[in-house]
């Protein structure tokens, strides 16, 4: 009975997840290309792609950019601001909670392309750009944030987009924290920060690490939001590994190399994921 119940999902996973992944790993060992005369007869090249990638400044640079992007936008920005928003929404004295919650949820609801185009308009280097209009009100000269501070710009955009999920997850986790424990800590003279540090946070440790795991995986995979804004530039300033893979596999047609880069990224994510799971002792 059990095989019968599991069969369809196992089949679907095998066809749509495992088979492409295995094929991707195989491609990573070949010099498969989509264009050019070399595309006619792809060869098995062993670990050449991996060797090229791990000695390529461009690829290593893209890993560095990805680490920076994930750390500052997801791990620091989204988590801290999401937690702050969740804690704020628990306050009984806060008025207009619906409006506040909706404002934070809105960036998550908006499609990726719309979000990118909106920010492209906000950060436009032209005088008509929203950002430049704002600083113009205070007498400032026009700026080009996507050229002058590209990494900071995409980090801010990603924080803006990701706070909602953090807030929802932390709100749900905070619901499970018994009010009596907080009251008792307060009676003992603990301030808000100490209550959070020694009572609330240990109790929601599991969900926090689960969120960190999820946001790390999804942020490493962020592509459209950044690609539409900067296409990885200027230069390679915002060339995340996802953009590197897209450019090499599809724009430059080096599917073999792109597949190998994807496998390296997958391996790094697995290591990160296992670390989170171990730290949180969350059962996944």
């Amino acid at each position, binding site marked *: 009975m059990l095989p019968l119940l599991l069969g369809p999902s196992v089949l679907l996973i095998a066809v749509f997840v495992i088979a492409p992944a295995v094929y991707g790993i195989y491609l990573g060992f070949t*010099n498969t*290309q*989509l*264009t*050019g*005369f*070399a*595309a*006619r007869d792809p060869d098995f090249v062993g670990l050449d792609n991996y060797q*090229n990638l791990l000695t*390529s400044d*461009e690829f290593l640079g893209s890993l560095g950019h990805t680490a920076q992007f994930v750390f500052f936008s997801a791990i620091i920005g989204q988590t801290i601001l999401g937690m702050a928003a969740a804690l704020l929404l628990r306050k009984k004295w806060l008025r207009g909670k619906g409006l506040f919650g909706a404002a934070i949820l809105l960036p998550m609801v908006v499609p990726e392309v719309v979000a990118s185009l909106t920010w*492209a308009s906000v950060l436009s*280097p032209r005088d008509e750009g929203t950002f430049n209009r704002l600083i113009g009100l205070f007498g400032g000269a026009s700026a*080009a944030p*996507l*050229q002058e501070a590209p990494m900071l710009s995409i980090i801010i955009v990603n924080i803006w987009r990701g706070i909602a999920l953090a807030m929802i997850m932390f709100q749900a986790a905070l619901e499970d924290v018994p009010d009596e424990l907080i009251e008792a800590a307060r009676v003992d003279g603990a301030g808000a920060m100490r209550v959070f540090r020694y009572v609330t946070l240990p109790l929601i440790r599991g969900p926090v690490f689960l969120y960190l795991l999820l946001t790390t995986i999804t942020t490493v995979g962020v592509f459209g939001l950044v690609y539409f804004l*900067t*296409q*990885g*530039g*200027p*230069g*390679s300033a915002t060339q995340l590994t996802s953009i590197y893979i897209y450019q090499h596999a*599809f*724009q*430059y*047609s*080096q599917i073999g190399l792109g597949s190998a880069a994807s496998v390296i990224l997958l391996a790094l994510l697995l290591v990160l994921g296992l670390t989170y799971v171990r730290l949180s002792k969350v059962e996944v």
Partner: protein
Amino acid sequence: MQRNRVFPAVTAAALAVGMLAACSDSDDGTSGPVTIKLLEYQQARADVVEKLIPRFESAMAEQGKDIQVELVTDPLTDDQFRTKITQQFHSGTAPDVVDMGGSHVTGFAGAGYLLQLDEYLNEWPTWEKYYSAVKQKAEQVDGHYYSLPHEASVQSLFYRKDVLEEMGIDTSQPQTWDELIGRLKKVTAETGKPSIVIPAGTAWGAGTWSEGFLPIVAGTDSTFYDREAGKWTLESDGLSATFDLYAELTKAGLLPTQALLNPNPWEPTKYKQFPEGTLPVAAQGTWGWRYDWGPNGAAPIKNVKDKVATWNYPALTPGGEPYSISGGGYNYGVNAETENPDAAVELVKWLSSDKAAAEQLTAIGAAAPHPGISDVEPYKSQPTLLDAEAKLEDSIVAPEGDGNTRVSQAVQSATESILLGKADGAEAASAFAQDAAELLGENLVAK
């Protein structure tokens, strides 16, 4: 019980009808109507071709051929087109005929996505008359033809004659880049703004290669691509001089670096500042006369023929002379997997001849690839295009070969590092050589 009998009866009937339909399809397949899908990824091209299709269908009907054409219009940038059509070719879903820039053909032909057209072309009398510069550009490294060029262009430096004359700047043909830079510095000193746009950096995509870098490096004596050996030479005096030129123009504030680093860099430069007259010189192909600045172009310039003129490229290396360069043009490629190759080739030949070609060339602003169109209206009344055609016979053909998209990628990165002020000419040349060698692999690089 009754329902049980009805079901097999309906199934049997459906099968019988299906079999009959299948038989009837196969009977019609050989002599019935043929539908050819034609892809255009530029709106202006789609607009003109759309009007020509009914005439082609009628012409074929007169010859007793029932060929229908389905136009697929998918407006995309060059890079978007290349990425998308590559996936379509690879997955076997590409249209029968694809109209594309000549620089795309090499990669697709190499991969076997395009039909070899040698036999068809040899039997077509017009092919013999094609200008040698056009034929040479269309010939692939294996010596075969995989596309039919239906237009040609000459890459030149377009300048605002009215603006420069008003400023008292010499508008005669500059003999060397030093001479031209001297003039550009005067313009920039007076306006405080950049004075020339040459595609550079990653945001301009393939244009940085075909409209920016290649026309300059091709004018030097250095061999860049050796067709016989099928290999690229990645370090040479010509390459160094070209990167030095970009660095000099950037350092002197003559190039609009900020605009070049933004997405769609052609919009503020070619579509805004050049028409305004605030950026008076632009590296540009023949299509600038119509597609960019013509009355129905992207950014019309009123009386464009009076206000704008062209220079040949000045010499970059010692002993050189000014030259014009064949910038190539669009080609029709036929999908190697098309079920109707004869009909597809019939379509591309028809579109590349006589009135149909004249109308397309005039709408886009391209020179004719063969002499048979110069007396056909409306092309006949386009002096700027006829002038470009006249230059074709003496123009230099830029060398291109297998791996050109990867060399293009390395050029984009290296010129971007100059724009960003992160590299001088020598550093950019060195980074280019290393980057391109990695991307091309040993087999395509000369030792």
